[in-house]
């Protein structure tokens, strides 16, 4: 009997998709495997490859089995192909085919669209590992180092998930696309990653936390939409990936929160009340709140660009064909076809930002972005609670959606963080107050010194409230290999 819950280790690639009886795909994946291992080995320094890291690995895809913790060397991490269990009699949830049985094979008419979506999603996964490759050497604690590696191995596994779909369902051109996922590289001149935000560097740990909070949250929204796909294997793949993605949100939200907490604490200890007394605060070896706001502005706006054009026929087609749904499609109470519905979208009239009704079908991207903004606001609220609790007068804010945008209607105008359209020259003159500049980056970089003693943390970040897997504060999350 094919066991679809427990992970099988009878091939080189752990999986719950019966790979051992699917020789064609197994062969293709085994051919791809060495390239993947090379890619991984080129990225992660040997010292870390040899270290024992306390990682979470799935032993099965049901809730009891997907989070087993133990020490493992990263190259021995069980990268594999894991799909959430098949839901019996699942139906296409949206679009013109809504209500018909979900596809178990690729519907011919949508083949290219589907492949494109999978490739774009797949391209982001290795990109973030590439972006984060230098962070290991400056981790503020073993706890954070472990979290970085957990994020890295799971992004690696997500690449596997997408590559499996390409190999299994898209034949020769699927294999070619899978090879290209390893050929492209973040920030490369010849073959960059497909999306802008994934070619930016992650130069320091505050950027990493902002990235996992804001950019991985875009990933979560995209996965949520693809989990609603009428193409069942894609839906099942993304549903399982979401359970892992939640950990990345966690690293981001608590990471920024701990930086904020430490700053407030240091200010109080030194008797500094004014959060804008930047030089004195920086002299304490912590990152001042206005600079944290600038980092937030940058990462939030880069992430908003990932949602594409506000009004988009591509998005309409993907929804209408049942390839991609909306966030929590199954919990939305409407006809799931959007035949006559409208949706409010921002537009620019003269020098004003106005709300306009457009056919909801074309506003799928906008709707997902609105869901994202609501979701992202939650953590900012928690960070502000930390500031408030410390008695500091400061509030972190999400800037207006039109601020600092490269894609969509706002890319043609200059909008300040409050949402006012201003002349381009004025915007450029003030940009240094809104976005991190070189001096800010240099200062943050100066704080990035590794701390490798168990239970100790760099001076610019507070200890977490709870350990991973409920471990005590001085737990040795990474046993560093000393060569």
């Amino acid at each position: 009997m094919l066991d679809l819950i427990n992970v099988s280790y009878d091939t080189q690639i752990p999986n719950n998709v019966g790979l051992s009886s699917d020789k064609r795909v197994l062969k293709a994946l085994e051919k791809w495997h060495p390239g993947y291992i090379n890619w991984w080995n080129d990225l992660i320094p040997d010292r870390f490859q040899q270290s024992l890291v306390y990682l979470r690995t799935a032993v099965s895809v049901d809730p009891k089995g997907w989070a087993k913790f133990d020490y493992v060397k990263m190259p021995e991490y069980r990268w594999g192909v894991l799909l959430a269990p098949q839901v019996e009699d699942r139906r296409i949830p949206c679009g013109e085919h809504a209500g018909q049985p979900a596809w178990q094979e690729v519907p011919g008419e949508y083949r290219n669209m589907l492949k494109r979506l999978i490739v774009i999603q797949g391209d982001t996964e290795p990109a973030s590992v590439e972006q984060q490759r230098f962070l290991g050497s400056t981790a503020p604690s073993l706890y954070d180092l472990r979290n970085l590696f957990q994020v890295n191995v799971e992004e690696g596994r997500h690449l596997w998930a997408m590559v499996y779909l390409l190999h299994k369902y898209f034949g020769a051109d699927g294999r070619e696309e899978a090879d290209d996922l390893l050929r492209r590289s973040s920030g490369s001149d010849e073959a960059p990653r497909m999306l802008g935000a994934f070619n930016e560097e992650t130069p320091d740990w505050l950027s990493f936390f902002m990235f996992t909070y804001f950019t991985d949250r875009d990933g979560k929204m995209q996965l949520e939409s693809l989990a609603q796909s009428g193409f069942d294997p894609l839906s099942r793949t993304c549903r399982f990936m979401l359970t892992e993605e939640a950990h990345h949100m966690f690293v981001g939200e608590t990471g920024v929160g701990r930086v904020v907490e430490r700053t407030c604490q240091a200010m109080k200890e030194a008797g500094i009340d004014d959060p804008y007394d930047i030089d004195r605060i920086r002299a304490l070896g912590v990152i001042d709140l206005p600079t944290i706001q600038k980092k937030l502005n940058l990462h939030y706006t880069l992430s908003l660009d990932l949602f594409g054009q506000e009004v988009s026929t591509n998005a309409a087609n993907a929804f209408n064909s049942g390839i991609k749904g909306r966030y929590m499609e199954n919990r939305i109470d409407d006809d799931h076809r959007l035949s006559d519905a409208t949706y409010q979208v921002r537009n620019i009239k003269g020098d004003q930002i106005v709300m306009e009704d457009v056919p909801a079908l074309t506003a799928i991207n906008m709707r997902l972005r609105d869901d994202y903004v609501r979701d992202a606001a939650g953590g900012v609220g928690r960070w502000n609670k930390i500031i408030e609790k410390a008695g500091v007068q400061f509030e972190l804010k999400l800037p207006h959606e039109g601020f600092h945008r490269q894609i969509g209607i706002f890319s043609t105008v200059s909008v300040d963080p409050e949402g006012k359209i201003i002349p381009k020259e004025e915007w450029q003159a003030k940009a240094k107050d809104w976005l991190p500049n070189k001096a800010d980056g240099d200062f943050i970089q100066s704080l990035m010194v590794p701390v490798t003693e168990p239970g100790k943390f760099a001076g610019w970040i507070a200890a977490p409230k709870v350990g991973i897997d409920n471990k005590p504060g001085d737990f040795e999350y990474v046993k560093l290999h000393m060569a």
Partner: protein
Amino acid sequence: MNQPLKQHLIDPEICIRCYTCEMTCPVQAIEHDDNNVVVDASKCNFCMDCIPVCPTGSIDEWRVVTDPYSVEEQFGWDELPAQADLPSGDDTGLEALDDAMAALLAEAHKGAGGKSRAPDSAAKPTINLYNLGKPAEAVVQGNYRLTSADSDGDVRHIILDFGGQPFPVLEGQSIGIIPPGTDADGKPHLPRLYSVSSPRDGERPNFNNLSLTVKREPMGVCSNYVCDLQKGDKVRVTGPFGSTFLLPSDPSAHLLMICTGTGSAPFRGFTMRRQREHAGLNGSMSLYFGARTPQDLPYFGPLKKVPDSFMQKVFAFSRQPGQPKHYVQDQLRAHAETIAALLQNPNGHIYVCGLKAMEHGVEAALSDIARGAGLDWAALRDQMRDGGRYHVETY
């Protein structure tokens, strides 16, 4: 007065509102507003599906309450309320979720002299996956006699297969076996606890099976049932149970394992796990094993094949014809110097498992050895136990 109950809560300061738990809960007991994600005490059935899926650790929170906190109350929280003092003095550490099993384990671990803790580097155990109302069904794959035919002790090695049902166990955990039939009052029998004697990846690696080491007791309802099982028989199983008597994952942990008879079961699991994971370890495991005779000692043959460099083995036989009686405590004393070194090693872990009767003698020996090294055993024991490095399981 209402019976106090354990209420499942989520720590709002730690939770990041990813709603993974809410999506996972099979009975829709978890809901959220703009502020918090909360568990409805009237719906939660303790299936624990939500615990491993949480990325933050905020969800593994429990309070013993007489009146459960309402959903609305929880929505308003900025932080978790402290555990209120209850007259019963019940603690909130969980080795099992049903009271009968929790009581059995509490009794078994009493010899540690206080609340047991898991080793810091132990993997996270799953508990109560199956219970009396919803047991797993295992199939007997084999039942082998471990003691020699001329011994009057009948100890058996029993292999159970769980087929497609997930049954994740860690070395040192126990499972419950439900004997068929009813007791004198006509009520169904409660499960009896047995330590698992195989490692986490199965008696045979990557097979969903495990082994038990069971001694036939005269008049024992369950032990006779288990010892008489035939290949192919179906058995109703609850558990897994136990969250403290566990193996450290850290390969540098040095283990001192002291047992008698079937108390060797968890140590067989420990040893096999370490052999599979870290076969190259040298001198970091010691086993002190007591039995009446070599013929009575379970796994005597296989044990002799474990290289001495991997594990030091010290046997104590109390009924060898023509020889003085030796008990494990005598052997501990005979090796006082190495034991004393282990007591002072911050990576040293002590495990005691077997009949209740051994507890006193072992404790006295350890106490003497400690005193000989200028250490205060009571303080050291408490310190080791609180650090997850001293474990007792006796029955």
